[in-house]
């Protein structure tokens, strides 16, 4: 854990941020409340791409459970989770990163899936084939995709 952080800090110092370090899902540092201070990819998120990931079935598919007014051009928003309008006024960037990476660290036992986790599953499957898969699984979203989603969520502020 430490190592990645140090390596990242060195990389940032040495190359002025040119070399991005990707945090391993198992090495992500959550604080006591589930927040993640450091970027997972070291590269700033792209909010426009984050919006695409949130609506795409094959990616985050966040709107399966959440309604988001800003994404209303995509059909069928679910009701399982809270409406995400104004979410960046309720949570800061580190907290949102923690919720997307592994919401269980913020909300004990939540139905929201962990998007940056690779092991510890019961009967893990190979995507939607119904067939067995061996851990570690690829995480549901990559480090950069999570940064993109967080960048989009940061645009959802109350007026």
């Amino acid at each position: 854990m430490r190592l990645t952080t140090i390596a990242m800090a060195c990389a940032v110092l040495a190359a002025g941020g040119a070399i991005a370090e990707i945090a391993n899902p198992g090495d992500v540092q959550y604080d006591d409340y589930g927040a993640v201070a450091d970027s997972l990819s070291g590269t700033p998120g792209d909010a426009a791409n984050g919006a695409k990931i949130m609506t795409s079935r094959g990616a985050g598919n966040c709107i399966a459970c959440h309604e988001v007014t800003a994404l209303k051009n995509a059909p069928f928003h679910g009701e399982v989770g809270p409406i995400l309008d104004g979410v960046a006024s309720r949570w800061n960037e580190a907290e949102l990163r923690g919720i997307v990476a592994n919401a269980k660290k913020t909300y004990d036992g939540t139905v929201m899936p962990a998007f940056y986790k690779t092991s510890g599953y019961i009967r893990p499957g190979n995507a939607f084939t119904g067939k067995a898969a061996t851990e570690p699984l690829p995480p549901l979203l990559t480090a950069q995709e999570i940064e993109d989603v967080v960048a989009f969520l940061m645009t959802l502020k109350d007026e």
Partner: protein
Amino acid sequence: MKLKALTAVLLISAAPVLAGGPDDDTLVINEEIEMITKTAAPAHLDGALGDQVISGWHYRTDETQSLELDDFENPSMIFVDQAIDAFDVAEGAAGKSCADCHNDPESFAGLTATMPKVDGTGTLVVMEDLINTCRTERMEAEPWKWSGDDMQAMVALIGLQSRGMPVDVKFDGAAAPYWEQGKEMYYTRYGQLELSCANCHEDNNGNYIRADHLSQGQTNGFPTYRLKQAKLISKHNRFRGCIRDTRAETFAEGSDEFRALELYVATRGNGLSVETPAVRQ
């Protein structure tokens, strides 16, 4: 009778198109069979589903609901007709048909309402097992595939004989260990999405998950005709689909695990009418 049907139609057309929750329509089939589609939750659920158990019919669109009001509209009935024909056809080395031993499908009235159950040898059996035992042992014919059209048509024909009767599946005595196993599965959060049956059908029934309106996941209408697949769907096929959707390794249709789950889920609907063969989206 005419009046009742009219009320049903009026209720259906007056139902508001609102997101969330079961609706308040009433289900009367063929203008005469009054179905129990909502009833007091059985005590053994300990309030897990609130105070009512509710048929999946209440969570469907008016259009889908209306297909169940009349057997001439219900697309399952084509398959039921095929099973009526198959009932009289001798197959296998013993040269026997179902009718040779059972006369008439009507002799099965009440059976589906009590299935699955534990047989005399302590084994948990579901309807597909009873049918295949007759085929292999008494007819000396090939067993049918679990979710095959011929099998599910026969399960539907036998189920139809109990239509309107309240589900009354035993969960105590010899059934208890199977029931516990099924319950354990129902609350296990399978797959990479870490979702249990209860997460969707207990915690979130009435909510939309993307375009799908989540019901209580009751099995009283099975096999159901699924419009999306244009055929009768077995319970185990539905379970498999739901588990697959959690990005998990599923269990096999006809596995002991799914038998136990089937028993447990059936008891969650004790008191609802057998609605076989139901129509779903």
